[in-house]
């Protein structure tokens, strides 16, 4: 009877086009980006404030308008409409272009010449906010931290709106936004401002690979009492808190609630989560990359300590070269350039799945010593494939669900989206009362009493 609500259709009957408000939002955001672009060519060095407001803040405001409008209109069942028809989210031209842009950004960020970065107008336009909050000038790492944090916050709001029917997603998203803003942005920079070590609380060894290396430990030990406590806390998180929390809640407590890499993937990366590779081959590759990296970082850390103890007697500069190599290939190229740059091409958790040594460590704990499992609801699975498609870790969730089997996988980060997108209420993230009952091997198709009861023979 009612026909209202077809405002979108008036513009364009069949394409899921955008309405006026969405267009205005995109327009404002584009103007902001244009201003940033102009400012970055030099003018921002003369008037950073102008470009901060007309560039950075304007694009943030415009984009926020677009997101609010888009998702306040959508209901739960419409969330994933046309994801595979959109050039940006289905590896079309827009997706490739965005991927190349992101990758390029990381390359310039990590390896761009310091002669550029030291006087870059692009950085200067962040001075107003850096000076106001922290009292120091922006550098490229401030720029990166700011963009990273703002991405998590804005896209976090988007995730909250998109998944507003699902309290698990709301609480979890608030958590990653909180940890990013407080523990991976404000606190470390305030500490820096107060001449304390710039300490990133939500990253611990072995993800923050050099945190427990001799140089950083020495640095912290000589930087006062607070630094010493931070060092102890960090080691405590890695070796004591991690196994305990993972035992009770699975690896999700870190990967989907605290970690900034996971935070970015689940907020800014949410439009690309379905691009992960679900094949068995990908799973095999994953096991051949992630565990060797964990082994490597453990051995390397030990080696560095031996070397430091012996003052280079045996290994000379060898261990330091290895450390440099790890920093370049794993820390920057893999985690940054590929991990984030390739979001629009390989999905969001490439680093978490194939590379992160912390995820490998948590995964081993989760697989062998945790109460966490994803429960399958009896026989209700219809094998539709939504769970597997939207699993960012590339787990073929459906393969378990359709057999009525619980899902206990090292790689599962417990983001909960499989349960969110399941149209039949089949999947549920649960912490059991013990870790021994997680797997229900050889289940029968639930409800099939004929086969279940060791079979009734001929009457």
């Amino acid at each position, binding site marked *: 009877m009612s026909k209202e609500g077809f405002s979108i259709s008036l513009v364009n009957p069949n394409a899921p086009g955008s309405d006026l408000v969405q267009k205005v939002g995109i327009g404002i955001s584009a103007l902001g980006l244009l201003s940033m672009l102009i400012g970055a060519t030099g003018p921002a060095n003369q008037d950073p404030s102008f470009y901060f407001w007309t560039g950075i803040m304007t694009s943030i405001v415009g984009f926020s308008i677009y997101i609010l409008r888009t998702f306040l209109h959508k209901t739960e*069942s419409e969330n994933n409409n046309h994801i595979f028809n959109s050039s940006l989210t289905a590896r079309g031209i827009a997706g490739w272009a965005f991927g190349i842009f992101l990758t390029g950004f990381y390359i310039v960020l990590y390896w761009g010449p310091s002669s550029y970065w030291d006087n870059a107008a692009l950085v200067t336009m962040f001075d107003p906010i850096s000076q106001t909050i922290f009292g120091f000038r922006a550098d490229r790492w401030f720029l990166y931290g700011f963009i990273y944090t703002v991405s998590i916050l804005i896209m976090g709001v988007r995730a909250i709106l998109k998944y507003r029917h699902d309290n*698990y997603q709301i609480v979890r998203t608030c958590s990653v936004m909180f940890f990013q803003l407080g523990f991976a942005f404000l606190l470390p920079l305030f500490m820096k401002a107060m001449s304390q070590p710039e300490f990133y609380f939500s990253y611990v060894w072995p993800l923050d690979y050099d945190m427990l290396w001799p140089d950083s430990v020495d640095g912290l030990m000589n930087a006062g009492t607070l630094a010493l406590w931070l060092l102890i806390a960090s080691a405590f998180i890695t070796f004591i808190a991690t196994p305990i929390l993972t035992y009770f809640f699975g690896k999700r407590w870190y990967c989907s609630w605290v970690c900034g890499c996971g935070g970015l993937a689940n907020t800014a990366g949410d439009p690309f989560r379905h691009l992960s590779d679900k*094949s068995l081959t990908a799973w095999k590759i994953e096991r051949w990359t992630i565990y060797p990296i964990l082994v490597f970082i453990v051995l390397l850390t030990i080696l560095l300590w031996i070397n430091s103890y012996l003052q280079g007697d045996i290994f000379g500069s060898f261990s330091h070269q290895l450390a440099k190599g790890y920093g370049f290939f794993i820390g920057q190229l893999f985690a940054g350039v590929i991990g984030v740059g390739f979001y629009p091409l390989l999905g969001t958790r490439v680093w978490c799945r194939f590379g992160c040594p912390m995820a490998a460590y948590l995964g081993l704990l989760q697989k062998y010593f945790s109460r966490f499992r994803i429960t399958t609801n009896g*026989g209700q699975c219809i094998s539709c*494939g939504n769970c597997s498609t939207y699993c960012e870790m590339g787990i073929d969730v459906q393969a378990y669900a359709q057999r009525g089997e619980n899902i206990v996988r090292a790689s599962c980060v417990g983001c909960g989206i499989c349960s969110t997108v399941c149209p039949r209420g089949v999947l549920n993230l649960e912490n059991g009362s013990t870790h021994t009952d997680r797997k229900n091997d050889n289940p029968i198709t639930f409800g099939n009493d*004929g086969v279940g009861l060791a079979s009734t023979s001929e009457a």
Partner: protein
Amino acid sequence: MTQKKNIVIIGNGVSGITAARHIRKRSDHRITVISAETDHFFSRTALMYIYMGHMKYEHTKPYEDWFWEKNRIELRRDYVSKVNPESNTVLLDSGEQLNYDELIIATGSSSNKFGWPGQDLKGVQGLYNYQDLESMEASTNGIERAVVVGGGLIGIEMVEMLLSRQIPVTFLIREDSFWNTILPKEESEMINRHIRSHHVDFRLKTEFKEVLSDENGAARAIVTGDGEEISCQFVGLAVGVHPNISFLKDSGIETDRGILVDKHLRTSIPNIYALGDCVQLSNPQPGRRPIEAVWYTGKMMGETVAATICGQPTYYDPGIWFNSAKFFDIEYQTYGYVSAQPKEGEESLYWESEDGTRSLRIVFDSATSSVVGFNALGIRLRHQVCDEWIGNRTSVDQVVANLGKANFDPEFFKKFEKEVQLKFETNKP
């Protein structure tokens, strides 16, 4: 080891494929699966998600393409035009004949059409198989309005699909409330409200009379029972399905509405079995219908037939009924037996959330107070717990007191148990 048999399966839907997989698990028999629809097994239930862009066809294939060769399940893309039980052969459209020792027919359903004028025009169709999806894709491109006829699960899915493309939809149903042959009044009304909230031109108690043609033989409008003409370029006919068995006409296999099978899912010919949607049980279990065209029973039948064929004769015993669906944003689960009209000797406890988007119905026997069924809308119930409660004839008091055990909603979701318990207490005489 038993002798190696040559098993041919017609149909690569969930029933046929489940049978094939379980036969392979249990034996070394040669397995050939024939389908005219697609090269590989895909999930029919996901057709709507392909149309809406949630997934691509490849995501709806539950097994990767290497799976079939690895498990020695031979796949043939062909149409079986005739089954010859005398010679134990099937004739393919390509002209080839295949021999079998045991034949499994799992050919599913076809969409109903009741002889309406214009029902075969371009742009008029049901939605059951992959080809239907392709033609729907082609017929709905750039159109101004669509009409969907039939208030069942496929009907509401088609409405949702069309709306995802911003195509205005008129939804005609004959009954005075959505799916009210299955859903009790309150649940049915909740879905009515929900359909309207999605801006559907929703017409209850409206008959569908005919489709009018344009000069190219395509649909241009439909006419309702009251003679109203509704202009549209696509007509979705979702008025049920029937077993797809026309190719068996002269085969000698006994059929009625579906292929008649015994408790072992054996047809009138001993080495021919049938399963899934195309089957009509000669002796269904009490409370069950002879034709149950749902995903779950197809799966169970596949497992049962595999056991029987592999030397472990097994009755088809689907246990306690369950089913599920999703109406736009509202999930539906049912366990046990909840009838649309209150049954004599039964009572039900019905709770609905204040905002009218979640509900729970617990049906129980008035005399013994043992629970016989659950209906849940907008909340998730734990299959195993509900199944046990119904199977053990647990009393409604106990069920209500322990409702938390059946709650399968994700963490941090608003709990419904307290409100249900309160309602139960207040309703008590």
